[in-house]
Each structure stands twice: as structure tokens, then as C-alpha cells.
């Protein structure tokens, strides 16, 4: 017998087209996309580049938000844990770098990065250990409390720099190799502007471009790592836990451990983002790490499409870039952002790019088809039950009398 032909939605989107390409083509396209992203600050394209602000600076902010959105997506999108205090991890990452390179020690930025990551992960575990037993919205408020406690401690503890914060933070190590010119579009046609160059790879005060490159590199690395982990037992365990914690537990998933893992990995990424921010900014103070930022992060994840790493990337771009692009309407932009959130939630509740699980699933289908064609004799008693005459989603009749 042949397999049931499933009615397929005939909508050839970008994603399907990607899928239909051979594997090398996909890789090539992604590499091209990555190169384009690296080149963006040099290309300095006229409409995209926000007038009046440093395009590299905006891009750096977008990249850091993207990193954060990827990290938070592990917690919110995959494991389904609503974390309203993610800014706490971002702050801990930034402050670890600040303390180790300026306030209480003179480490290099590079040496403080692993320390920042480890400490942030530890704080994730310490926060998660007691609180992950609390469910749902309670977790949201407890994490919100965590974010606020972190911020208030930063203000109140002199040892952490107090309200003025920490300055003189070390920058990432420079390796001057060659100079790259930016394009100038002021005349309407692209001209190579030799006065405006970025040196590869010097992390200075004025030119933000190298910081953007560094952040973008982390975004790409995390994307790749995320993809592998998500498509493994770990990713499935997260999703199962999110869908039905008890059922997952009874299917052998140690749900608590996986939730804690999600928290730790989310914190890991948040720590990197914080370290990058501190390294680029050179100074940090508690007012950067407000609850509002946590909420922006959550918005990035949900607006983009929680559970889909490309979606949350898009969400981060929307949340970080659009307000910068429309700085001209400075005083109206939060209002517009709020309206956009409501409209989006109403008309696009799954986010701009919702996770299309069927993409992965379709690959499976092909695999099955291949198996089927190789099995000429699909004999046996099994398959027939699948096509039982009345197995069409009819609800159970009044039969369910025997509740044991």
C-alpha cells in the first residue's frame, strides 16, 4: 500500500525555495549573507543607514540585541519559561568585565570574557535552582524581581561602582592588519571615501565598526551552536517540557535539569552580550540595565517569532534598529513602538517569522518515502490501522465512563 498523500499547502515562500536548493547552494547563500552583513558598515547603504547617527554604532546595538534575543529564545521560545529579568544576566556579564578589567583588577578584555561567561552562567543556575520549581507566571515575576535586585545592588553597592558605575573598561585586543574604506553616498552615487576608513582590527574609541564585526561573529557562532543543540535530544527535551511537563517527565525527560540547562545557556549568551557591550562602551552604569530593557528583549523574541532563531533575529532588528532609524521622531518613537507591538500581537500573533516545524518535518517525510520505496514488501498488520474508517478526528463518544 502507498502512503497517504497529504494535501500540501502550495505556498512557495522563501523558506521552501531555500529548502529546494541543494545543500551546497544553501551554504553558499548563507555565507554570502554573512559576508554582506560584515560589509554593511562599509557599504553604508543610503536608506538603511540612519541619518545623523553612526551606522556602525547602530549595527553594533542591533548585533548585541540579536545575541540577546538568541539567548533569550532558548529560555522563552524553546523551553517556554517566561523570563522577565534577562537584563540581569546582561548586566552581570558587563559588570564582570568592568570589575575585572578596571574597577578591581587589570585583566585584559579577552581574559575577562570567559570569566564573565562563567559567572553569568553560575548566576543563571543559582537563580534557576530554587525558582524553576515555581511555575509559569510566578517564574515571570520572580525573574523580574531578580533583574531588579541585580540593578539595585549595582546602584547600592559601592564595591560594584555604585550609581556612577564603572569607567575605563578594557577594550578587546587590537591586531592592526589593513584598512578598509567606507562608501560615501552623499552625492547619490557610491564613492570610495578614503578619509573614512576602518582598520582591521583595531578596537578604538571612535570607530565602532570592528566591535560590530566582533559582535556579528558571536551572533553567527551562537546561531550555528543553537541549530545543533536545538536539533538534538536537548532541543526536543525543551520542547516536550514546554508542551507538557508531566508527560515529558513520564517519558523519561529530566525536565528540571533541562530547564536549568536552558537557563544556564540563556545566561551564557546574555553574559557574552554584556561583555561585548562593556568592551565597546568603556563605561557602564546601573541605569543602562533597567527592567524596560528586559521587556524590550522579550518583545524582540515574541515579535520575531519565538522558537525560530531567524525569527528572533528579525525581532531584534525590529526592536533595536527601527527606533534608531527613526530617531528624527525621537519623542514619538516609544509611542509608535507600543502601537506596533499591539498591532503585531493582534494581526501576527505567531510573530513575523513563526517557527515552521514542518520544514524539518518535511525532511523526515522524504526520508520515510525513501524507506518506503526501498521496502517493496511493506507487509504486516501495522499500517492498516492507520486508515481505519472512522479515525477522522471524531471526538470520543460518551464512552469515557470508566475513570479509574
Amino acid at each position, binding site marked *: 500500500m502507498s*502512503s*497517504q498523500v*497529504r494535501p500540501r499547502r502550495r505556498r512557495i515562500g522563501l523558506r521552501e525555495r531555500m529548502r529546494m536548493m541543494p545543500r551546497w547552494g544553501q551554504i553558499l547563500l548563507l555565507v554570502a549573507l554573512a559576508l554582506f552583513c560584515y560589509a554593511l558598515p562599509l557599504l553604508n547603504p543610503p536608506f538603511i543607514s540612519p541619518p545623523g547617527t553612526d551606522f556602525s554604532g547602530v549595527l553594533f546595538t542591533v548585533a548585541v540585541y540579536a545575541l540577546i534575543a538568541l539567548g533569550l529564545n532558548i529560555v522563552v521560545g524553546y523551553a517556554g519559561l517566561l523570563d522577565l529579568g534577562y537584563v540581569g544576566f546582561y548586566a552581570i556579564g558587563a559588570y564582570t568585565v568592568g570589575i575585572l578589567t578596571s574597577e578591581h583588577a587589570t585583566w585584559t578584555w579577552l581574559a575577562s570574557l570567559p570569566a564573565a561567561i562563567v559567572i553569568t552562567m553560575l548566576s543563571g543556575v543559582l537563580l534557576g535552582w530554587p525558582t524553576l520549581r515555581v511555575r509559569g507566571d510566578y517564574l515571570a515575576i520572580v525573574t523580574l524581581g531578580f533583574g531588579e535586585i541585580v540593578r539595585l545592588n549595582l546602584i547600592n553597592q559601592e564595591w560594584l561602582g555604585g550609581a556612577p558605575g564603572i569607567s575605563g573598561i578594557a577594550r578587546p585586543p587590537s591586531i592592526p592588519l589593513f584598512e578598509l574604506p567606507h562608501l560615501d553616498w552623499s552625492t547619490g552615487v557610491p564613492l570610495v571615501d578614503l578619509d573614512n576608513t576602518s582598520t582591521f582590527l583595531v578596537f578604538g574609541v571612535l570607530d565602532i565598526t570592528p566591535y560590530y564585526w566582533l559582535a556579528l561573529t558571536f551572533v553567527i557562532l551562537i546561531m550555528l*551552536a543553537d541549530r*545543533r*543543540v536545538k*536539533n*538534538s*535530544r*536537548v532541543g*526536543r*527535551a525543551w*520542547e*516536550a517540557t*514546554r*508542551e*507538557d511537563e*508531566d*508527560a*515529558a*517527565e*513520564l*517519558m*523519561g*525527560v*529530566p525536565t528540571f535539569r533541562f530547564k536549568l*540547562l536552558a537557563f544556564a*545557556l540563556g545566561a551564557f549568551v546574555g553574559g557574552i552580550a554584556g561583555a561585548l557591550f562593556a568592551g565597546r562602551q568603556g563605561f557602564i552604569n546601573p541605569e543602562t540595565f533597567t527592567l524596560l530593557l528586559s521587556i524590550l528583549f522579550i518583545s524582540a523574541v515574541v515579535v520575531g517569532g519565538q522558537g525560530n532563531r531567524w525569527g528572533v533575529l528579525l525581532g531584534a532588528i525590529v526592536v533595536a534598529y527601527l527606533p534608531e532609524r527613526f530617531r528624527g521622531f525621537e519623542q514619538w518613537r516609544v509611542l509608535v513602538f507600543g502601537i506596533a507591538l499591539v498591532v503585531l500581537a493582534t494581526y501576527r500573533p505567531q510573530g513575523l517569522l513563526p517557527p515552521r*516545524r*514542518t520544514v*524539518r*518535518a518535511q525532511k*523526515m*517525510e522524504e526520508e*520515510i518515502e525513501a*524507506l518506503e520505496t526501498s*521496502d517493496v514488501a511493506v507487509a*504486516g*498488520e*501495522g499500517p*492498516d*490501522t*492507520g*486508515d*481505519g*474508517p*472512522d*479515525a*477522522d*478526528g*471524531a*471526538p*470520543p*463518544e460518551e*464512552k*469515557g*465512563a*470508566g*475513570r*479509574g
Partner: protein
Amino acid sequence: MAETPPLDPAPAGEALLSMNEVTLRFGGVTALDAVDFHIDRGEILGLIGPNGAGKTTAFNVMTGIYQPTQGTVTFDGEVTSGMKRYRIAKRGIARTFQNIRLFKAMTAFENVMVGADAQHSTGPIAALLGLPRYRREEAAGREIAHELLDFVGVRGRADELAGNLSYGDQRRLEIARAMATRPKLLCLDEPAAGFNPSEKQALMELIRSIRDRGLTVLLIEHDMRLVMGAVDRLVVLEFGRKIADGTPAGVQNDPAVIAAYLGVDEDEVEEEVDDAS
């Protein structure tokens, strides 16, 4: 046909699980009262009883959802009461649910993969680096998932979201997911609820073939006729107490059982007993 997943070849006819004088109280209510029975390896044991008799509660004690107030559960030579639920699942008890509890936003295939993962240990680092263990376990999981989806007859819908499957397919998928954990004991909680007679028959065929693969099956079912034809032995509960234990033929004529069912619904019992004989 793909290979059968590796099973523990166990000698038949020896107790796989025993409930040892298990008592469970919620506040003042005694849900299970010194319930004592065992399940032999390789048999299909039916657990029946009128409404509220404690059948699902007994399941919940076996799978670690409730801890017995008194008594113990031993499984495969180990005391499992008090263990974490996922550990019990790993030891080899898998179950389905009376009200279907699939991972609705995951595909049918992924649901079964989650089950298969119960015996795996890939962590984030192994997955990240693509270590051999990750590859091996992933391949094993896929093979099991394909085979089991085929076995229960949901193969054609492997890539559909579990929540979009038909009711019958969801029930069968739950069985596949549970079997993917490679259990020694499979507990089915009213797997035929909501099925029409021909579907029920097909399901009983399926249950027998599950047993033929070497699994021990514990079956809660309300439909007496169905149980009579399918099981090797029956345990009857009433008000949290065991009132009978024996072959279907023996239990069917047990005055205590007849009384218990008469107490619930006279017509139903007579009808079902008649049909069964």
C-alpha cells in the same frame, strides 16, 4: 521492515512488577487500600473495576506520580516507589494517558523521538560538537521512531503536528511514543476509549503484537468484552481494594466482581458478561 528496537529478553512468567500492600491516602480519602498484585513478565494483565475504583491511581503510583502512603512498588528487582518519575521511565515503565497528552506542537515523529531519547544521554556539548555518541543516538532514535510509527500505523503522518492528527492516530501515536522509551512494561490507560468496535478490534490486535515483541502489557479498560478477549489475567479493583485476581473466565464468574459491577450498572454488566461468554 526495519529492525525491531533492542529489547530486554526477559524470561517469561516471573514477576516484573509488584505492588506490595500499597496504600495511598489523600487527606481522609483512601484511594488505594493495601492493594497487592503483581505483573508477570510477558503477560497482558487487565486492570478493571468500576468508576473510581483506583485504576488510574494505581497507574500513577507505579509511574511515580504519587508516592504510596504505605507499601512499596518493586519493578524488575528494584524498589521504584520514591524514585523520580523520569528515572522510573528509564528503568522501563512507559505509559499512555486516559486523556491524550501528546506534545501537540511537535510532529508525530518528534514525539516518538522524545520517547526514544529516554534511553539516550546526549547533552548540549555532545550535540554541539557532533560527537560520535550524538550521531549514534540520533541514528538509533530515528530508526526506532520510523519503525514504531510504522508499527502502530501512523507512518504516513510522521511529519504532521501531533495536535493535528485524528483522534485515533493520536491514541496510536501515544502508544508508539511510550514504546520508543524501550520499556519492559507498557501501561495503557483506556487506549480504546472513543473507538468504534472495529477500531477496538484492531487495537487489541496491536496490543497482542506488542506482547509478541516481548513487552509486558498492563491494560486499563472499561469495555469488559474487549478485556476478556485480550488479556491473560485480570485484576479487579473496587473502592481502592483488590477484589479479584485471576483468569478472565475465573474472574467473570466471581460473585464479588459481579456484585461490584451490578452495583454500578446492572444492564451494562449483564450485557458485557453475556457478550464475553
